[in-house]
């Protein structure tokens, strides 16, 4: 596709439910990132996939958060037993392999936990 796409664009869920957020990176991009952005705040790194290497999960805030990337392309971020503090915009970005390459961001998924 032309850019990074994310779905859904908005998700409203009830506290305690599980949610899955999807990211379709730009074709051929080997690296994929997930970030969380609370209202009016900066970007909080969550997880980083680079090719076939083990993902860097150092930013995941709790064991309720997990992500996978199937076939080196599409990624799914799963939040189990959602809490109100999980409400935020979840951004995905991808980049080509190599050091000097910018990240391209998707439009984000706005998650609201009631």
């Amino acid at each position, binding site marked *: 596709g032309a850019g*990074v796409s994310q779905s859904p664009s908005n998700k409203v869920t009830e506290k305690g439910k599980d949610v899955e957020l999807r990211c379709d990176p730009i074709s051929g991009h080997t690296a994929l990132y997930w970030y969380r952005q609370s209202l009016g*705040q900066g*970007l909080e790194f969550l997880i980083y996939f*680079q090719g076939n290497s083990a993902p860097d999960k150092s*930013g995941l805030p709790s064991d309720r958060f997990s992500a996978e990337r199937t076939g080196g392309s599409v990624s799914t971020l799963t939040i189990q037993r959602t809490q109100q503090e999980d409400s935020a915009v979840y951004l995905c970005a991808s980049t080509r392999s190599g*050091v*000097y390459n910018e*990240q391209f961001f998707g439009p984000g998924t706005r998650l609201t936990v009631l």
Partner: protein
Amino acid sequence: GESVGLHLPTLSVQEGDNSIINCAYSNSASDYFIWYKQESGKGPQFIIDIRSNMDKRQGQRVTVLLNKTVKHLSLQIAATQPGDSAVYFCAERFGNEKLTFGTGTRLTIIP
């Protein structure tokens, strides 16, 4: 460094004036730096990048300055326009490691 749970600093500039947004990065070994612009309701968009072997790079109306001695990065926007109002993030990377974002600065252009 990473921005976690921090409220954004703000900068207000009169339309037509130049603006300078500053960023202190954390890793002295970082060799690649990027500035992003994020408009309301959108994902961050690339503005300009610079490698560590350079100290200045110019784009259209934007200039990035890198001072490795004090680990400081700045973004200069010339002749600001209302469309420049956004949040600006710097980011750093070392090798093939993950990109690390700074806190971000909210720039408001006053008509």
